[in-house]
Each structure stands twice: as C-alpha cells, then as structure tokens.
C-alpha cells in the first residue's frame, strides 16, 4: 500500500493515474456507446423496450428494411453530393485565399485570422443567418443575383427540391472555408523559400513553380485537410436543422441528419442506430487516412 502510494506520488504510478481516468471516461462515454450502437442495430427497439437491454434480436433485418426503403438511396446520394460539393468549395476557395495571403504584406496575418469567425460561431447561428440570406422572396442573395443578371426570377433555395441541398452546401462552404485556409497557410509557410529561388534561377515561371514545387510539397497537408474536411462535413448537423430540416420531401436530407430524425422524430431507434453504424464505418475510414497523412508529415 505504501509502495503504491509512493509510486503514484513519485513514479510511473503518477503517469498511469493521469492516463487511466480520462481513458476510462472516454471508454465509458464514447467506446461503450459505439458498441451499444452496433448491438442496437441488430435488435428490435421501440418505446416499450427502451428501458431494457434484453430486446429481441432480429439479425440483419434492420439493415434489410433500411435498404428496401425508397428514400435510402436518394439520401445516400445527397450525402455524397453534400460531402463532395462542400469539400471542393471549401478547399478551392480556401486554397485561393491561402495563396493570396501567402504574399506577405502588413496586416496579412491579422486579416487572415479574422476569417476564422465563421468557424467559431455556433452552427445554429450560421444556419439562421444563411436561412435569412437565402430566403426566396426577400433574401439578399436572390437580390444580388438578380441585380447582376445571373438569374431572372427568384430561386426558392429552401423550398425548391432542386436547390434545397445546395442551400445547405453554400452555407457549409462559408462555414468551413476559413478553417481550410488557415491550415493550408500553415502548410505553405513550411515550404523552404530557397526551393523557389533555385527554380527562379532555372527560369521557371510562376505557373511552373506552382505545379512543380507548391503542389508536390503540399501533398501531405492537402491529404490531411481533405480528410479533415470529410470528417467535418459528415459531422455537420446544425445547418440542416437551421435551414431545411432535411426537407422538402427529403430532398436535402443526408445520413447524419436522417439518423437523428429516425431516432428522435420517428422514435425508430433501431433504424437510427443502423444508419449510424454504416456512417461511422465511413468516418473511421476517413480518419485512418487523416492519421496516416499527418504521421507522414511528422516523419518528413
């Protein structure tokens, strides 16, 4: 007992105590729910069996039911469009801004940091603002598009099934661009300057320098940022809740919103758990890519 105490005070026991509590907490509150989720996806769960662990097992019935529902494939397709659209927009605009701010001028880093307000704001507030900007009759975006002659009639962003998903994508691009830009700036700053001097001496123009130096040197950063983007877009929930609620008629519904909707609107916890399991497998895959690309960077 005494040896144990002294080890905690002045030995490896100290480290073990420091690590054991947080890891135990994470296991209880994140690891167990994960396993419980998988368990529930093989059970029949309704309001009456919510309070017990011993629910009837149904095998893969939840999965079969899920994929025989007519809305499943369109929602999976929406998720793919949402993820690709958001990541492409965030990355391209973010990269453009990062390249611009890479040219050092007084005030550059302060102004660059200011962009990040979009990222620290609560998602619900961002959603509320964009909901108002995108509104059909009185939205300021429609007004600007009309004035510049891009559209002739108002687009009903939130209620037209052809546009509702893009309404959320626009808001999500705005939300995530700044974060992409900041991380890309860090990557750009770590490229050694003498590479460019050497290339310039060899007569490479700006375009060639970008393709042969900047992009190859940024490869691992870009890998990390794209997989981080995938992780963050699959976490995006608040914007859907604030702008379209997945509607109209599921036209802007994505899996992460649908899983919640199934559980907490339709009280079909088993289906919610089933969708969650499928998506979590996807997210885990993305995070393996992310971890691999950041490790690559540390090793150089």
């Amino acid at each position, binding site marked *: 007992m005494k040896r144990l105490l002294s080890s905690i005070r002045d030995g490896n026991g100290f480290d073990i105590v420091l690590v054991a509590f947080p890891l135990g907490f994470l296991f209880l509150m994140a690891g167990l729910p994960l396993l419980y989720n998988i368990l529930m996806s093989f059970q029949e769960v309704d309001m009456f069996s919510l309070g017990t662990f011993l629910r009837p097992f149904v095998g893969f019935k939840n999965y079969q039911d899920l994929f025989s529902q007519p809305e499943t494939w369109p929602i999976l397709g929406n998720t793919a469009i949402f993820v690709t659209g958001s990541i492409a927009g965030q990355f391209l605009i973010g990269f453009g801004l990062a390249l611009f701010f890479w040219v050092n001028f007084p005030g550059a880093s302060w*102004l660059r*940091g200011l962009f990040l307000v979009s990222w620290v*704001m609560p998602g*619900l507030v961002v959603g509320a603002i964009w909901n108002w900007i995108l509104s059909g009759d009185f939205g300021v975006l429609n007004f600007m598009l009309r004035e510049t002659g891009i559209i002739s009639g108002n687009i009903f962003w939130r209620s037209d099934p052809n546009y509702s998903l893009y309404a959320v994508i626009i808001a999500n691009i705005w939300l995530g661009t700044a974060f992409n830009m900041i991380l890309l700036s860090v990557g750009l700053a770590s490229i050694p300057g003498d590479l460019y001097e050497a290339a310039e001496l060899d007569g490479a123009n700006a375009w060639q320098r970008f393709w042969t130096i900047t992009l190859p040197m940024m490869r691992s950063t870009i890998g990390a940022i794209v997989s981080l983007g995938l992780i963050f877009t699959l976490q995006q*929930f608040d914007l859907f809740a*604030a702008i379209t609620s997945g509607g109209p008629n599921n036209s802007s519904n994505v899996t992460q919103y649908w899983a*919640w909707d199934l559980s*907490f609107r339709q009280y079909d*916890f088993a289906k919610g758990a089933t969708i969650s399991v499928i998506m979590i497998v996807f997210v885990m895959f993305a995070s393996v890519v992310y971890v691999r690309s950041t490790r690559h960077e540390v090793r150089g």
Partner: protein
Amino acid sequence: MSDTNRNRLMLVIAIVMAAIYLFPLYWMFITALKSGSEMFATPPSFWPSEPQWATYAFVWESRGMGRYLWNSLVIAFGSVTLITVLGVGCAYVLARYRNVWVDIGLFLILMLQVLPASLMITPIFVGFSQLGMLNYPRLAVIIAIAAKSMPFFVVLVRATFMAVPQELEEAALVDGNSRVGAFFNIVLPLARNGILVSAILIFMQAFGEFVYSKSIIQAVELQPASVGLNSFMGPNTNEWNNIMAYATIYVTPILAIFVLLQRRIVSGLTSGAIK
C-alpha cells in the same frame, strides 16, 4: 511598382475580400436593427433608415434569453471544467513518452474525435435513459459534450506540452521534487497559456452545442440558447429582425473573445490540428 504601393494594393484587396466574406455577419447586425416593414423592402436597404434598438430589449424579454444564455453558460463551463481536469493529465503523459502504447492511445483518441455527434446521440440517449441520467439533463449533456470534445482538447494540449523542454522537469526532479511536485510547480505553469487557449476553444464550441442539448433536454427552462434559437425559427417565420437580434446577442460574446485572443487562438489551433 514599389514595395509600399504593392503592399497597399494587397491590403486593399485583402480588406475587400474579408468584407465580402464577413457580409453574412454584417447582414445579421443590420437586419436586427431594421423595422418590420424595412426588412421586407425591395430592393433591400443596406443601412437601416431608423435603427430599432428596442428590438434587443424586446427579444431579450419575450424569449427569456437570460435563462437560455445562463443554461448555455452552465453547460459550457461544466464541460470545460470536466475536460480540463481529465484531459490535461492525459495530454501530459502522451507528450512525455514516445512508444507503441502512446501511439495506440493517440490513435484511439483521434478515432474518437471524429465520431459525429448526431450519430452518437442515439446510443448515448438510450443508454442515459436506462441509467436514469435523463433526470439530470444538463449534467447528461455536459458529460456527452466532454466525451465528444476531450480528444480534440488532448491533441491541442499535447502539442503545448511537447514544447516544454523535458530538461526543466528533470532538473526539478534532481533538486528533490516529487513527480507530483514537478508537474504542478514546473510543467503546468509553463504550459498554462496553451491550456488556456485550448480551453477557450472548447468553451466556444460547447457554448454553441446543439445536437445533444436538443435531444436530451426536454424541459424548456433547462435548454441552452442554441435550442432556444431553433424553436424561435419556425418553418414559416417572418420575424427575421427579432431572430437576428437573438443571434446577435448570442454570438457577440463569442466574437468578442475571438477578436481579442485571435492571434493566440489561431496559433493554438494550427499547432494541434496538423502536427
């Protein structure tokens, strides 16, 4: 073109781009000051003709914002405290050693960081309801947020501890400090700034948290401001000036903290997310 002229030109372009990017924020502030009829004018006015400052007091009173914001504060402070108490030690140990076990631990933590809240809420809700935790909804939300955000905090703070030279701690041990003493007297004070910035980032996240609060907290008087904003925005609402006033009151404290500590927050964020 001379260097000063080039710098000025770049600065002007940068300010224009920032202005375009931050236009949604401007639109929020401006809409909150418009009257009901001005809000729906065509073409929209980009400067309120008669600023309606009374909207703020009206919204604060009629929506009971004091209670909502208080709940947001309770939840944010609760989760930051829980995360800091548990996470700092974990980050310290993960920064101090370099072996297979630390790699495995870090990998698991990164994996937990990526689980979307809206997917995890189903098992958490069912589990909590079985344990009777739903009788203490705010505590349940605090615990759920802590489990969600602690991995991110650990990754950020670990980067801070990595920057503290290990020789300092060893010197303290040679001078007769115990491990506990060296940790609290030497290492922790040196890493204080990094911990503080990470805690502020977590605070801002928890202050705006929505999924867990919306699903777990049923009683209106315990809900945070994000859920309050959500219930304010019905499907066919036309009170946009009031909603924007609500949003302004809600985000202004966060924006103020961010603008004041911008440099530190940005550098703290970038050190953890990439390396």
